[in-house]
């Protein structure tokens, strides 16, 4: 009934809503394909006991909630942004005394049958608060102080999430740096960040001496290329030499120290497994419990990724067809409905289906960036970039994990994975964006 209200419909971006509806539908269908057994379909949906019927119910609830959000005045979001952030952090802190441990994560509070994961929910609040801070008139994002405050806003929940064993969600909070980059964070930060990632991965993959050789060769090549500039610009030579020293230092000392002293053995092992290397156990530095824990995890994670790759790989070009996937139908892939839902699409619809799904996500992200850039208010723009960053990091980590490019990190695929909290969170994120976009001519602060 409310859908006909011209107040709601005006200015709404139908493209985003269409992609959203498509993705959630594909998600429900995939969960159905993975978990449907021989029961009557109608009964299965009506009973609300099957996973796919529950997800369908969450879909309905999400849409109602979405419509409800579209009815809210946009000013409410700016007004409550800081408050909600504080509330979110408080919720995150409440987790420590009141959490219930479920499948190795310590991030869930349980009220009866209802489970709440504040770290998941908090993404909305952090996004709002960051947008609010960046859009304040007194904020000059070219100042280091403001950059540090913005980073702290993002890093606080990330650190709390790490303490709750939710590495995946912590990584998602890091994606807010994309928003800060858009708002003027120096490119150097991004370049250095990406370079560091490349260097660390290269350190894991390559022989230390070979890598040192390559780095030296690169440095010498740079010096040779810029040899004529040195006379005019003395500093360039020092920058190149400095880069070389830092790089070699990182690959020679920092990474080994990080892996041996800072990270837990099972974490190291997981990272090694992703790049396809065996982690050699050093019995002297590890306790027996560590070794056992690592062995258990190794079995589980390598099995998960192997099964996931088999499922996706066996899909071939056209896929086996809906419900015909032998791997996803018969529980070979663990966490089939939740974190590994992409396998169902990969096996059932093959390369074509997977590529189309990825295209939908890319289209959504591009559309959100487009929406962001047409906002009059900085708040809305920052918020939109935040939504894009969150969705992007989720898709990257989740699909990267299922195809074996990223370590196994439990994190849902936006709109598709089974789970009420995740679906509601993403729906709310997107609904607020659509609501803000409808008021794109307003100047919100």
């Amino acid at each position: 009934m409310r859908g006909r209200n011209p107040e709601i419909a005006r200015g709404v971006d139908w493209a985003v809503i269409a992609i959203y509806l498509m993705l959630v539908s594909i998600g429900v269908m995939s969960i159905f394909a993975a978990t449907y057994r021989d029961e009557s379909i109608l009964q299965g949906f009506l009973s609300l006991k099957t996973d796919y019927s529950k997800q369908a119910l969450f879909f309905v609830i999400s849409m109602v909630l979405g419509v409800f959000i579209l009815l809210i005045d946009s000013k409410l979001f700016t007004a409550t942004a800081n408050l909600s952030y504080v509330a979110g952090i408080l919720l995150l802190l409440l987790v420590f005394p009141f959490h219930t441990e479920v499948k190795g994560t310590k991030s869930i509070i349980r009220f009866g049958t209802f489970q709440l994961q504040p770290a998941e929910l908090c993404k909305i609040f952090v996004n709002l608060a960051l947008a609010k801070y960046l859009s304040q008139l007194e904020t000059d994002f070219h100042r280091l102080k403001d950059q540090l405050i913005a980073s702290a806003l993002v890093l606080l929940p990330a650190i709390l999430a790490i303490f709750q064993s939710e590495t995946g969600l912590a990584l998602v909070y890091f994606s807010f740096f994309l928003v800060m980059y858009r708002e003027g964070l120096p490119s150097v930060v991004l370049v250095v960040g990406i370079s560091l990632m490349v260097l660390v991965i290269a350190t894991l993959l390559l022989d230390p001496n070979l890598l040192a050789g390559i780095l030296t060769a690169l440095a010498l090549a740079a010096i040779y290329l810029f040899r004529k500039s040195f006379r005019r610009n003395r500093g360039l030579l020092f920058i190149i030499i400095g880069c070389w020293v830092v790089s070699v230092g990182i690959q020679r000392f920092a990474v080994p120290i990080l892996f041996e002293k800072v990270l837990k053995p099972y974490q190291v092992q997981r990272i090694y497994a992703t790049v396809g290397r065996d982690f050699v156990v050093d019995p002297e530095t590890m306790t027996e419990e560590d070794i056992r824990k690592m062995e258990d995890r190794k079995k589980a994670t390598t099995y998960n990724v192997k099964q996931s790759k088999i499922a996706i790989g066996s899909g071939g070009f056209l896929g086996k067809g809906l419900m015909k996937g032998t791997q996803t139908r018969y529980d070979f892939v663990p966490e089939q409905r939740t974190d590994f839902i992409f396998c169902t699409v990969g096996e059932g619809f093959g390369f074509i289906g997977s590529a189309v799904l990825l295209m939908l996500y890319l289209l959504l992200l591009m559309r959100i960036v487009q929406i962001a850039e047409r906002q009059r208010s900085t708040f809305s723009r920052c918020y939109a970039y935040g939504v894009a960053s969150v969705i992007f990091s989720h898709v990257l980590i989740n699909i990267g994990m299922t195809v074996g490019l990223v370590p196994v990190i439990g994190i849902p695929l936006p709109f598709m994975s089974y789970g009420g909290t995740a679906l509601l969170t993403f729906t709310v994120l997107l609904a607020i964006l659509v609501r803000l976009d409808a008021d794109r001519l307003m100047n919100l602060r």
Partner: protein
Amino acid sequence: MPLYHQSRQTVIQGIFLVVFVILIIRLFVLQILSPQYQMQAMDNAVYRSIVYPDRGIIFDRKGKPILENTLTRELMILPNQLRGVDTAGLLAILGIDTAEFRQRLVAAIVKNGRYRPTVFEPSLTIEKFVKLQESMFRFEPGFFLQERPIRTYPYRAAAHILGYIGEVDSTILRRTNFFYQMGDYMGLSGLERYYEPVLMGQRGVSYQLKDNRNRIVGAFENGKYDTAAKAGRNLRTYLDMEIQVMAERFFANKLGAVVAIEPSTGGIIAMASGPTYDPNQLTGPQRRRNFSWMLSDTARPLFNRAIKGQYPPGSTVKPMGALIALDQGVISPEYGYGCGGAYVACGRPIRCSHAGGGHAANLRNALANSCNSYFCHIYRMSVDKGQFGGVANGYVRWQQYANSFGMGVRLGLDLPSEDKGFIADTGFYNRMYRGVWNSCNNVFLGIGQGEMTATPLQMANLMCIIANKGFFYTPHFVEHIDGRGIEDTILQRFGRKHEVTRISRDAYEAVQLGMQDVVDHGTAWVARIDGITMAAKTGTAENYGIINGKREKLEDHSWFVCFAPRENPKIAVAVVVENAGFGATWAGPIASLIVEKYLNDTLRTHRLKEVERIASKEIILPVIRQKRQRLDSIRRARAEALERSVTGNRDGRATDLSTGRVKVPPAPGIVHDVSKHAGRPAQGGGPVPTEGHRLHKVAIIRKDEGTKS
């Protein structure tokens, strides 16, 4: 700074694009460039199960099945999966108590370990099986039911012929290039082995979908790729089970063998080796124990003496000597020899059972009276014949004759591991006599002693040649195979006629008449059957064994070979009874009864008594019997101990079973004689060392020397 922001927007969009391109490339690699994932998915989710066809049945000549396929139902235990099993319920159904349950569990773990299934209760009755099946969910996965096809033998006979089936071992797996798989059964001996490709049928394959816990969830692609199993093909044999059963009765308590062949086809009517055993003993749960018991039996029931027993043929070989001499033209049927009771031409006299009276006035008489002098003489005439220029060349010719009669060569019947007997070659004599020897040195060959042994099969085949007047078909069991298949070439070689040199029919006629006289008024009169003209030859073969380190002369082997009716031969028989004395005493009556039963299809009443008399007579050397009895008592003790353990004896004695083996003290017995002649194969009734026989050092080597007829 719109340009500035414009570029940042582009950078962010670029990052998105690059990451998605990387993901799509990765998907391309996984889904299109890596076909191995499809294989792995199949391995994961598709269960390939072999559907075993029924093995072919073997029928006798009257169309009665000699063996059948039946299912045995077993309760299996998987010791590492016992948690949560309703043991009390299981005990109630099986009717055993906890103490016995524990003992059986321990026994199972000792036998196969914790992770492999072991038979917990074999041969379940139908009632128990049904009860267990109903409530199996309470006992899984620690227990499960299993049906296994086994062979049963309604006649309890023909064990040596049929052989047995057993699980393939790793050697067979490798040799067959993994055509068989672990756990498959295949024929391991006898006809089961020889006709394995025919009997086994064609295995079917069925593809089924399974889930992550290996539970079958349905057919794969609706069975599109399944292939059906094709049942094994049946064998129709020449065997006459009534004859076979009777023959085995005779040899239940004797050592020796009988072979009966249909001369016109080479089809084997009966083949028994004494002592016999019930083939049902080598199926089912007791198979292993029974097998090892039989292996350790001094009388060696597993040894098929009909094709592997090597005996000096004695006088039964005389017709062959006569045929050779006739063919070489050194004698005519009218040729006579003045025997004065011994052959003295070679120094030490060779005794003859007759003296004077013209008992060797012609070939016919000499055969009928089995004159040793006559056959020694014609043997020497054969090898010393002038045109050969020396005994060595003459002997080579004689040996060729013997080989063409099937002596000293493998006949190639359709059973594995036939032995070829022994006919010495000139090289053998050169070594034995350092190059200087003459026809006197091996004159015993003329009367079937000396450097010569033959299997009962070879002697029966020799009778076929004489009955057929100069040809034979390779002896074989299988007449035809039901259905059609590429394996049919397996039977082709049995249809080929083997002509034996160019000996004239007249020569055969003369020999046949002589052999008829043997029955009518010669040494084999006991074998006479009213209304049937039989041609026969008795043999009484001297043999030696080494008992407790001393070479001793043993009781003579009793030989009898015959065919009947003489004019139109339908059956040729060779019988040897070890250490039973004169050929006419035991071997003759046995052959006679077999011929009568086969030709008349029945026995007259007074002859039935004869059957009982022979069947109940035990003829086993005392030294072998002692050893046997000792082993028997040990077995009884073990069986009782087992009985105690099964019925739940709680005094602890039963545990001796699994740990303490009853030690068998070495009995005074017969030790293996290492033949004094280098390179000489084992002779006489001696064993060919097989795996089983290595287990104990008791065996007999019989040496054949001296003369007697």
